[in-house]
């Protein structure tokens, strides 16, 4: 391993291919990952143009957000990931503090009181930051402990995951809370937690869910669950979105109706066709082949993420890269499953395809960390 690193660093002696590789390495960018991301972004802009009824302004704003994301990714990639490792506890504490501040002076938007509007800064959601700060902290915490983690470490991990998740739930943003919790849980899973705990936890959740449904779930959450099991209980109300998006996807068939030819999409039958339900537009206009192409692109990015995790030089990097990759998958899967009727509706965008702002930048922060892991020399600090 040390030898490998040595060869990589003395790239000047290598072939031309190695030369270009070293140039990418020099700017801390992973070409395959970048290519996958760019293809997804391009495809996303194409679909968005049709989904927004050819609204060029929407597409331009989305492209600009993506450029901002790329810049953020590039900047993050320049730092050795161990720099973030050393700051992980501080970042976590700061973010917890911000979540606390949000509880006090947060601004409400779309039903969630999760925005912070500090003077001199653009308004942002501290909960978004948690999406990568939690796995960062978990990787920091577990990487330096013997693996598989002992019960004690799992217990402390659970606390570190659940505290921010709980704070976000209080902000009435269950979707983000789940994502934050999952990004932390993935680290624990990858760290080799005993299957007994995993199975035990799974059954505990299963048993707790009726209690949650009866005592904790809010009306709209109950509605979503009921609608999931039978969309036709309220076809023009709660079930409308899922019915119409299923009609759109189903009527797309194998080859789709053609770009900008989706009747469901173009005639406004699909609500939120720019954001959470954009897969319905894609499915209608590009058919099963389009959906498979998209899944192919995602798989490529996921595979590259997995490869980065696999080749990472230390446990911290492995755990972090693995968690980021799985979280990305989780986003993709949950959105696609909810739009096609495999899961209840949870308000989550389709990564890099749905119209968005902060959430896109958060994704790029994750990609930046992956690139940093893959392109920096082994840290002197192990």
């Amino acid at each position: 391993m040390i030898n490998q690193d040595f060869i990589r660093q003395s790239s000047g002696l290598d072939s031309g291919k190695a030369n270009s590789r070293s140039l990418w390495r020099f700017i801390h960018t992973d070409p395959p990952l970048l290519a996958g991301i760019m293809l997804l972004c391009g495809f996303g802009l194409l679909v968005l143009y049709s989904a927004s009824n050819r609204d060029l302004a929407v597409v331009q704003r989305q492209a600009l957000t993506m450029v901002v994301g790329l810049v953020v990714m590039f900047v993050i990639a320049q730092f050795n990931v161990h720099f973030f490792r050393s700051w992980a506890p501080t970042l976590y504490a700061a973010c917890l503090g911000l979540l606390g501040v949000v509880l006090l002076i947060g601004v409400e938007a779309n039903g969630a009181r999760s925005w912070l509007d500090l003077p001199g800064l653009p308004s942002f959601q501290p909960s978004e930051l948690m999406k990568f700060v939690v796995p960062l902290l978990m990787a920091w915490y577990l990487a330096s402990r013997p693996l598989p983690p002992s019960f004690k470490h799992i217990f402390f991990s659970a606390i570190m995951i659940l505290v921010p998740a709980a704070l976000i739930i209080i902000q009435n943003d269950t979707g983000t809370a789940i994502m934050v919790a999952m990004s932390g849980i993935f680290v624990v899973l990858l760290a080799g937690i005993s299957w007994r705990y995993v199975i035990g936890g799974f059954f505990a959740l299963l048993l707790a869910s009726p209690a949650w449904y009866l005592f904790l779930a809010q009306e709209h959450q109950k509605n979503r669950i009921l609608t999931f099991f039978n969309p036709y209980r309220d076809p023009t109300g709660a079930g409308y979105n899922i019915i119409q998006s299923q009609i759109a996807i189903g009527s797309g068939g194998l080859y789709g109706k053609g770009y900008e030819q989706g009747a469901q999409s173009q005639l406004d039958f699909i609500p939120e066709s720019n954001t959470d339900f954009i897969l319905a537009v894609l499915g209608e206009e590009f058919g099963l082949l389009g959906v498979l192409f998209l899944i192919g692109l995602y798989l490529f990015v996921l595979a590259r993420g997995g490869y980065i995790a696999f080749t990472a030089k230390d446990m911290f990097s492995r755990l972090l890269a693995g968690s980021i990759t799985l979280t990305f998958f989780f986003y993709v899967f949950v959105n696609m499953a909810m739009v096609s009727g495999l899961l209840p509706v949870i308000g989550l965008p389709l990564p890099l395809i749905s119209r968005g702002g902060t959430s896109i930048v958060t994704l790029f922060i994750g990609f930046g960390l992956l690139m940093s892991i893959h392109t920096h020399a082994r840290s002197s600090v192990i």
Partner: protein
Amino acid sequence: MTGKWQLKDHEAERQLFNRRLVVASVFVMTLFAALIFKIFNLQVVQYDYFSARSDGNRLHSQYVPPARGLIFDREGQLLADNQPIFNLSLIREQVDDLDAMLNYLSGLIGITADEIEQFKTRSRRNRVPFSSVPLRYVLSEADRSQIAVKSHRLSGIVIEPQFVRQYPLANLTAHSVGYVSEINREELDNMSETDRENYGGTNHIGKSGIERTYEEVLHGKVGYEIVEKNNRGKVMRVLDRTDPIAGKNIGLYLDARLQQAAEKALGDSRGAVVAIDPATGGILAMLSKPGFDPNLFVTGISSKDYRGLVQDKINTPLFDRTTNPYPPGSTVKPFLGLAGLELELVDYNFAIEDPGYFRLPGVSYRWGDYTLRTAIGGGHGHTDLQKAIFQSCDTFFYDLGNRMGIDAMHEFMALFGFGANFALDVGYARTGVLPSRDWKMATRGEPWYPGDTVNSSIGQGYMWATPLQLATAASIMANKGRVVQPRLLREIDGQPYNPVIENPIPDVVVKDPDFWRYIQEAMTMVVHRPFSTTAFRDYGTAYEAIAMADRGMPYKMAGKSGSAQVVGISQAVLKSDDIVVSDLNKDHGLFISFAPAMNSDIPPRIAVAVVVENGEHGSSVAGPIAKEIIDTYLLEILKLDFTPKTLSPSESLISQSND
């Protein structure tokens, strides 16, 4: 710290992590497989189902109503037009809370409780789901902009362009042309399946007059459209279309100028005018006064306006006086006179010495002469049939009728259309009453008495005839027995309309055609026989009011006046305070006529019947009205030239007496 480091086995941990990575990969692939399975199921297995659902979402079949045929008068003037308007309609399925929406619209553009009531009635009609129901016809520019501004709050509310009927002459054609109004539940229920389909896109249907009679011709055939709509019901594209076939335009015999003249001539009176072209039977004028504005009914009359029309028990504007019967009075005398000649009960030399009353043998009751009620007394003296007609001598006809008997009278009068509807396309006209023994037994359960015959012989008693029937009889008289059945429809889409009449009414044939001349001459004398300095009561009853009033009259006109006793006034009318009841007890004035009469060059071109309610005198009130209409038609519309060429013997006879 160091202890922990010693405990950490990096290679074992790496192996553990890699195993977990493999598990994660399997997990990812499994979930993606499930997802692909689900989407494959939607897009390939259930493709047909969802494809149909998608088409059902966007594709809508809708009716395209045909344009209703226009109605023109004799000279091509529009009597019924189609006018483009915008109406405010509501798609029930797209409005969540109907009451809240109506409430909101009340605030926004002042939708009234009345309109809401009408809307709810319309909503109860059979209709295609997702079709719109009009809430307000004729949306003003201001209302339209209000709606446009608030459109985001008004889902399910649409503004639709539409054509609605417009009647430019308004009350002049209210009864004859009639009007269209909204189809009601009952009409829909009575339609055949095909018709209901044909009316799928139509809101209106002919309710009265020509609009109703020729509904089938005017309506046309519905078209269809397959359109693509977005989720707010807005039509984005028309994908397929079967054009509707517009209703046919029709031309009537009716003359707008003559309607105008009739309305003007009637003045403030209640009454009716019917004018017929004796050559064709074409109805030239048909006016009932007072009329009403039929345009009110097209877009839904407000209940206040409707109450106003219905509750006017005196003027009864909705009541069509042209097709409802009155006692014909003395206007029947020319026809009875002709019957007398035909049945050889009288001849040209026959005369009575009129004492001023009539008595049935063995009965002490005296039938007085109504026409002499105000005179000094006595009778008409020596009276032959012509004098009996131009002086309207009741006694003569009491005697004649009595000798004729009710059976012969009924048979002969029926030839002129009394008691029947000769009109081809005025099916709604009443038939009046031409009494007979059977009729009286059937309706009253009483036998016929000789006194009933005496009353009938001056057009009173049980006899009832509509102005349309009187004009018809007059035109048969003008035609010397040739029957022309009255009709309104002259042409369809520019093509003359000559229907095959299945059971044509036979012409009136008399033993000696000179009888016609004799009676027509007598009727001409009614108007033109001047006062005599020597003979007693020897002038025409209408001479003073018509021929003397207009000495320059270039043509001769035949006529007969009549007055009808007002039988009874309804209690409702008697109770109202604001009218002079004595006026309502006055006789109705009637006049029948045709012109030009006794003219060897020009046959009669117009036959007219006029009724003036409570006009008291036929000759002086109804007569001049008939003359004005005839003047308008002959002199202004036809512009006939009456410069005498040669003097016919019959004309010279009247001119001599004129001197």
